[in-house]
Structures are given as C-alpha cells and as structure tokens.
C-alpha cells in the first residue's frame, strides 16, 4: 500500500484509497521560493551584526543609567 499501512483494517484500507487523492496532488509553492528566500536570508544576516551591537550598547546604557540612579538615591 502506498501509505504504508501495516495489517490494515477494512476501514484503513478504504482510508488509504481516499488518501491517494491527496498523494497525487504534488503542487508546490504558488511561486518559486529560492530567489526571495536567499535575498531575505542575505539581508537578515547582514543586519544581524549591527543589530547585535546596537542591542549591546543599549543594554550597557540601561545598566549605566541604573547605576547612576542607584547612586543618586543613596547619595
């Protein structure tokens, strides 16, 4: 059997026959994905490093401001 049913019941055999309808439908994406996926992957990779640096700077600034605020409260 195409679907690989093992020791199928009569109902499973019937189901397998119905599923052949879907197995015969090999339609892929509405338009090829490769080009736009590669383009998106490229810019995402290029944007990652600057975004990571910006994130680290923002985190350091927040930490610094927190320390300043803490000292002011104590002082």
């Amino acid at each position: 059997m195409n679907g690989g049913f093992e020791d199928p019941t009569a109902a499973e055999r019937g189901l397998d026959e119905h599923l052949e309808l879907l197995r015969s439908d090999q339609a892929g994406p509405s338009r090829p994905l490769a080009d736009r996926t590669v383009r998106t992957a490229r810019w995402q990779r290029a944007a990652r490093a600057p975004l990571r640096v910006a994130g680290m700077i923002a985190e350091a600034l927040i930490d610094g401001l927190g320390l300043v605020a803490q000292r002011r409260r104590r002082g």
Partner: protein
Amino acid sequence: MILSAQPSPVTPNDPDRELVHRTLAGDSGAFGELVERHEAVAHRVARRIVGPDEADDVTQDSFLRAFHRLDRFRGESPFRAWLLQIVHNTALNAVQRHRPEPVADPPATEEPARERQPARELEERERRERLELKLRGLRTEHRAVLVLRDLEGLAYEEIAEVTEMPLGSVKGRLHRARGELIELLRTNSYDWELPE
C-alpha cells in the same frame, strides 16, 4: 558538536552534505539550491498542517530559520529530516496562533472559472478539497504524523526525528490519527464510504 567546527559531521550518505558545507562557508547560492531541492516537500507538509493560505509564509519562514541555525545542525540525521523538523514546528506554532478552521463540508457552489473544467476533473478537485478540509479537522498533532507518514511516505524513524518523539509514540499517534480521520469521514459526509 557544531558542523562548522568539525571536519565532516554530516550524515555520510546525505545528498545535501556538500550544499550544507558550502552554505556554511558563505555560499548563499548553495542555500538557494537547498531551497529548490526541498521547497516542494516542505510546502506540502506546511500546507497540509496550516492550510493553503499560510503555507507559503510558513515554508519561507522555515527555510530562513534553517539558514540562521545551520551552524547548529549536527548532521546526525539527514538535512531533509532536520529541515522538516523546523517546518513541522513552525507550522504547529502558526496553527496555535490562529483559530481552528471550520471542518464542515464546503457548500456545493461552483466558481465561474471552474465551470469550464471537465466534469470529472472538477469533481476530483472538489473531492480533494473536501478531503483536505477533513484532514485539517484532525487534532494538529495527529494531522502532522498522518501527513508525514501516509501522504509523504516518511519512515517511522524519520518521523520520530521530525516530531522529536519516541518511535513507539509515533506509531501509536499514527494509529489514533487514522482512527480519528476515519470517524471524521464517516460523520456528516455523504461520499466517503468506509467499512466498519
């Protein structure tokens, strides 16, 4: 073990081995070839889990996730199984974000464009759409294993990798999925004859 740090950790017989290595070395054309090679199966799996409207987005999102995580691909299983694991997880997440689709049979109205199709082709297409709708009525985790096994023909071992489940659980879940689909086809359906 990270792929880029080791000489050849990818499954030796994996036909994607060379493309994976080239992608990791910065060759985005090789990644494009991986997409072309697997987009059909990835899209079919996505479409049958999330439905046709979101299938393109889920498929592309899965490939992008694969691209950014490729340095974490351990190569202990073939690239295709690893990719389908990402497709499977991305599709399940997409389903969780949305309300379930209705599972009732669609009304028997014909669109104008379809009237020109030969009657037999039209009938088969409508039957397929009704069956797909029934399939989407399954519980998501049941739908996923049934799609991977009964529609895509993956080996149980490969499904275990994709779904991150033990082999025994895969077989049990598949048995329950088939039972659930049989019950769905018997309920409110006039043309799915299934013996008791």
